[in-house]
């Protein structure tokens, strides 16, 4: 593991943001850090950069506690985006490159490279506050990437992006990971980022494969009730009569096909991937929306009148 987070604890007043969070991020992988708002994702990422303090726990980079020097090899895109509004684009990107220990000439060349790569060529001398919202997002990404970081930490990089922007962003993340960079990003929009965080999601899904089966003329999936618990359990029946069956470990899917055939003409028979949001519900017992509403209510209670 390149990046290790070990037993992170953080309380804000009565709200527990982190309660012993522990995980590791392997090198060269796009690692999705998913969860509803209030799960402590931002606190964790800010703690990596030392801009949020921890009550307990340790963050290690390549086996050593993260220090200032290590941080200068990291790239960061905070949840609340921010650049100097009146500074010119090229100068700004170059300035941040130099703050990450790049010599002047290399910093300028890298700034030009990333401005071009992110489709901002021609706007080098534009003030940041004259750029569109989307272009400001790109500038922010350029700032995070310009010094060729070894660890890239992006807090909600997809929020506020249009579908084209989401594709561009995920393309860049994949490309960086392929170049050996460790990428950690957070999101609370689980469905949006499904494709990007493949390994984690597949791990969860692999436990119990799911079958979707439809038999002609059977709108409520009555046939499936005859299948015993040794085969699987019915998760849901869709309005068109498709039955979703969560297979019991080691069960034979062909026996379910036989059952369906016996009931009538089988119109649809396929393995189906679970949505990440469903996995989330399975693990936590609540939907993302419910979890967020609960957190919002708790936070409002504990910080009424206080600062955010």
């Amino acid at each position, binding site marked *: 593991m390149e990046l290790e987070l070990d037993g992170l604890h953080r309380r804000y007043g009565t709200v527990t943001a982190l309660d012993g969070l522990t995980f590791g991020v392997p090198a060269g992988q796009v690692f999705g850090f998913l969860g509803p708002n209030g799960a402590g994702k931002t*606190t964790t990422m800010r703690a990596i950069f030392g801009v949020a303090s921890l009550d307990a726990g340790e963050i290690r980079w390549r086996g050593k506690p993260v220090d200032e020097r290590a941080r200068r090899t990291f790239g960061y895109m*905070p949840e609340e985006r*921010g650049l100097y509004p009146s500074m010119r684009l090229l*100068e700004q990107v170059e300035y941040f490159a130099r*703050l990450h220990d790049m010599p002047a000439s290399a910093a300028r060349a890298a700034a030009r490279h990333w401005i071009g790569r992110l489709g901002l060529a021609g706007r080098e001398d534009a003030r940041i506050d004259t750029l569109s919202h989307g272009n400001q997002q790109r500038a922010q990404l350029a700032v995070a990437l310009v010094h060729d970081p070894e660890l890239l930490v992006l807090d909600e990089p997809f929020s506020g992006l249009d579908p084209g922007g989401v594709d561009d962003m995920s393309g860049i993340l994949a490309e960086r990971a392929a170049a050996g960079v460790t990428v950690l990003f957070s999101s609370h929009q689980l469905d949006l980022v499904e494709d990007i965080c493949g390994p984690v999601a597949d791990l969860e899904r692999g436990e119990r494969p799911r079958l979707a089966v439809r038999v002609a003329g059977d709108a409520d999936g009555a046939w499936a009730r005859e299948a015993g618990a040794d085969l699987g359990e019915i998760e849901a029946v869709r309005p068109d009569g498709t039955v979703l069956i969560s297979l019991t470990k080691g069960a034979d899917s062909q026996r379910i096909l036989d059952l369906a055939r016996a009931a009538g003409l089988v119109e649809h028979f396929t393995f189906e991937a679970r949505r990440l949001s469903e996995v989330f519900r399975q693990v936590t017992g609540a939907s993302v929306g419910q979890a967020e509403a609960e957190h919002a209510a708790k936070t409002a209670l504990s*910080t009424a009148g206080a*600062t955010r």
Partner: protein
Amino acid sequence: MTWLVAGRELLTRGRTRVFAISTVVLVLAVALGVALPAILSRNAKPERVGIVGGSTATLTGIATEAGRLAGVQVIVVPEPDVATAEARLRSGDLSVVLVNGREVVVKQVPIGGASSAGGTLPGALAQLAGLAKLFAEVPGAAAAAANGIALPVRGLEPPSGSLANRLTGLFTVVLVWVLISVYGSQIAMGIGEEKSSRVVEVLLSSVRPVQLLIGKVLGIGLLALAQTAAMVAAFIVAGFAAGSSLVHGAAIGIVVTGGVFIVLGYAFYCTAYAAAGSLVSRQSDVNSVIFPVQIPLILAYALSYTVIYSNGANTFYHVLGFLPPTAPVAMPVLYAAGDAPVWQVVVSAVLCAVGTIWMARVATGIYTRSILRTGARIPLRQALRREPAEAR
């Protein structure tokens, strides 16, 4: 890191139009302020005094003596009658008319009433002519007027500081006050900008708060120093070129003292302004938090006029000269007015330097604890606490 931050401040502020224009305006203002009085006094026209009736020789003597007392050169112009004299007075040909033994006529009643003209040419004329009238009625006394009638004034001690020195001191103090408050608020605004635009979180992911703070005050301080140097150069060049009395002798010592205290004053206040700026999340709130920081400066500045225009500073102002928050303004004034010897200036400078270190410590602590907190304005008491009750 610190120098990179300072470099950015220098670059982005130094090339703005505001900086260029303000530098030119300030340098011109200084040059004009020094050179104009000197040029004007050299070309001062003599005052024309009209006389009507009586003995021309006697009246000319009175007018000349009055001019000497009032410190102006006088040309006596005999007029045939009062009506003609009044007409020329109205048109501005004459400044004042002396009508034999009866009255002194001026165009406008002096502010404060006809009898309050003492110290001016009409006032001196009125007094001398009145005395002459008295002499005329006391036989033998008239001759005395020819030798001058004012009693000599004898001072027990030499003046503590010449007026020119005091004015140089005033110039220095205005400079200290303007530079500290202008550049101080730039520091606070700059930090407010970093906080409100949220760029500070990106910055602090690779730079320590202390580096960011020091870089900022260093960069802005260098700009302030450059502007000060330009103004002092303008002061000296324009002063010598115009032959102004402001730049002679001891005045150079005053300018040097002023320079030392500009640097000390900036050093003392820059971190305080930075701490104030870090307490707010919106730039529009900056002005309300920096006002308390400015109060000692305003006090010392406002009271400096009582020292410049009087002999012997009061004890209260003398104390202000040794307190680090007020010393940068008060001490140059005291020195310029001759109320503080050099050793006191040195003691005050040392105290101010010690105060600066203390202020830097406290302010850096406040800044470090407040810079990443957004939302409502942070109460100072909370910012001073070591472990702030954070919430989010």
